[in-house]
């Protein structure tokens, strides 16, 4: 299918695939088994310019845009979904600073994040509910020329390995978006959540205990934190989840297809059996639909359309892509029989990883709330 990629996007896709197949694929089992964050791969991707695709050249990015970013996430996730997931979380603060930060903040953090020399995270969710951000209890109270932050955040991707953490807290005027550097007194990553999927990407609980944060760490205006956080989650977090889903489902589908063409039962390859062939057809068709629904908002953002106007489209993309991915990864497992559970074939890893996408960037149900509100108004 011709997606209308530019020549640069075609070359980017090829280069990303080459990287994924030669540098990542041989180590997937080892990395996923150990569960350690793949710092070296992140650095290599940074050096290749793959992390700063949505950031401007001025700050070390390339400005290639959202569609390019999605293509790269897809290529990484196709081989190792966890690596795709790194982008879903790791690009959040980069986008927030680029679009809402001061010149000084951008110069100070974006270049290193683009290079993969530093890693970032973005914390909104709390025990009070990620789906209900207005119930958040973390506070940032004015203290002289800065803030004192108190509270806890949960299910925050990358927090443990992040050199800098963006977050939202209740403050004067509503909510404020701020960031804090690792090692700041009073900021602590307290726990790593045991997860079945994305095993090498940490998801953490963290706490702020009388943590002093400077005024210079405020992103955008005080009290206008959601104006920065919500578009960020939409443009980066939800699209990222869609991208990971697309890549993973492609990988699972290719694995199942290859298996079915080689596996012989009753004297023929099982891809000849109609039940399995139709299963593969459904997977194939679903992936195409998910791709188009996910690519379009990215293309529109690249053309300058405002994220706010694309909120519903992006929610729909995340919802459908993740739904397709879960369905397909399950189908792939079934098509492969007992081999579907063998770590060597990796399909079971894809399914485990897709479970995480049920909530990443917002739950599937929240996506439906966003869409439902829009259609019933």
């Amino acid at each position: 299918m011709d997606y209308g990629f530019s020549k640069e996007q075609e070359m980017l896709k090829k280069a990303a695939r080459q990287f994924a197949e030669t540098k990542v694929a041989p180590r997937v089992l080892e990395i996923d088994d150990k569960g350690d964050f793949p710092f070296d791969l992140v650095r290599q991707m940074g050096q290749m310019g793959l992390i700063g695709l949505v950031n401007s050249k001025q700050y070390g990015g390339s400005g290639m845009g959202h569609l390019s970013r999605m293509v790269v996430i897809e290529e990484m996730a196709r081989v190792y979904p966890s690596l795709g997931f790194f982008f879903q979380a790791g690009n959040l603060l980069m986008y927030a600073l680029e679009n809402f930060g001061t010149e000084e903040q951008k110069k100070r953090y974006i270049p290193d994040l683009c290079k993969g020399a530093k890693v970032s995270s973005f914390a909104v969710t709390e025990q009070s509910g990620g789906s209900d951000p207005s119930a958040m209890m973390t506070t940032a109270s004015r203290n002289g020329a800065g803030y004192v932050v108190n509270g806890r955040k949960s299910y925050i991707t990358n927090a443990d390995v992040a050199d800098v953490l963006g977050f939202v807290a209740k403050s004067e005027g509503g909510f404020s978006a701020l960031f804090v550097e690792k090692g700041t007194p009073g900021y602590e990553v307290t726990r790593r959540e045991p997860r079945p999927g994305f095993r090498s990407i940490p998801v953490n609980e963290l706490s702020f205990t009388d943590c002093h944060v400077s005024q210079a760490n405020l992103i955008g205006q005080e009290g206008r934190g959601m104006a920065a956080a919500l578009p960020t989650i939409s443009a980066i977090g939800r699209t990222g989840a869609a991208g990971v889903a697309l890549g993973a489902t492609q990988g699972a589908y290719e694995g199942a297809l290859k298996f079915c063409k080689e596996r012989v039962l009753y004297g023929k390859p099982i891809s000849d059996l109609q039940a399995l062939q139709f299963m593969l057809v459904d997977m194939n068709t679903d992936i195409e639909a998910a791709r188009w629904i996910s690519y379009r908002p990215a293309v529109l953002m690249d053309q300058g359309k405002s994220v706010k106007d694309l909120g519903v489209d992006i929610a729909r993309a995340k919802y459908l892509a993740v739904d397709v991915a879960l369905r397909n990864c399950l189908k792939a497992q079934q098509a492969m029989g007992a081999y579907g559970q063998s770590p060597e074939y990796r399909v079971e890893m894809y399914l485990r990883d897709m479970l995480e996408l049920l909530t990443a960037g917002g739950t599937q149900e929240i996506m439906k709330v966003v869409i439902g509100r829009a259609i019933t108004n």
Partner: protein
Amino acid sequence: MDTVVCIKQVPHPDHFSQITLDPVTKAIRREGVPLVMNPVDRHAIEAALQLRDKFPGKVTVLTMGPPQSREALEEALAMGADEGVLLCDRAFAGADAYATALTIAAAIRKFCPFSLILCGCETADSGTRMVGPMLAEFLDVPYATNVRAMKVMDKGICLVEADMEGGCMKVELGLPALITVNRAVNEPRIPDVMGIIGVADKLLSTYGANDLGLPAEKLGLTGSPTRVAGVWEFKKDRRSEVLKGNPKNASSDAVARLREWGGL
């Protein structure tokens, strides 16, 4: 130190079985077969790029082929080559290694001053290993083929190690020279985003027969000393007896067949 890297776009080696023969016209059909840069050519490009780090100069990448070959040049530019040259003309079609080398030599003589020419040691499709040495002869420069390690010294000398059966040959070449490299020589870089974006700003020139100043009878099929007399599908004739049964029975049957054959 200016270098020229000669590359070729070939059908993707994994898809060779999709190439068919038209039973009537005997023409090779390769529609739908994806094309890629000849794999070992990447190593030649990488060698040129690494040389440029040590001895600043221009890396020109050149190919002779149909218009689509441009993609291979763009990939080389994305890796970091400075300029591309596409030799494209119907008159070049059907050239064998000799005519190809003659044509490329004419282009290099006219448009690409060089200290070193780098090529991949063989192409994945024809694998003749001929164009490199012939090109060196037509340009009257020394050459070494199948190089697995190379080092350019300051005094315009290049030291290479060429792979041979059971060993290697150490050769010293005075520049200008031509070297063909094999996969062992380096690990080619993957194009990065900056390189990809930079392609649009780089010069990619196309030249045809008229630009080279070669007489028409030296080009393409007409200029080729060799030509194809016939092509056919190749079928093997083996017994292809597949033994059935559990591994133990199949094994003893297999050994029985070997005993019957009597060749052991």
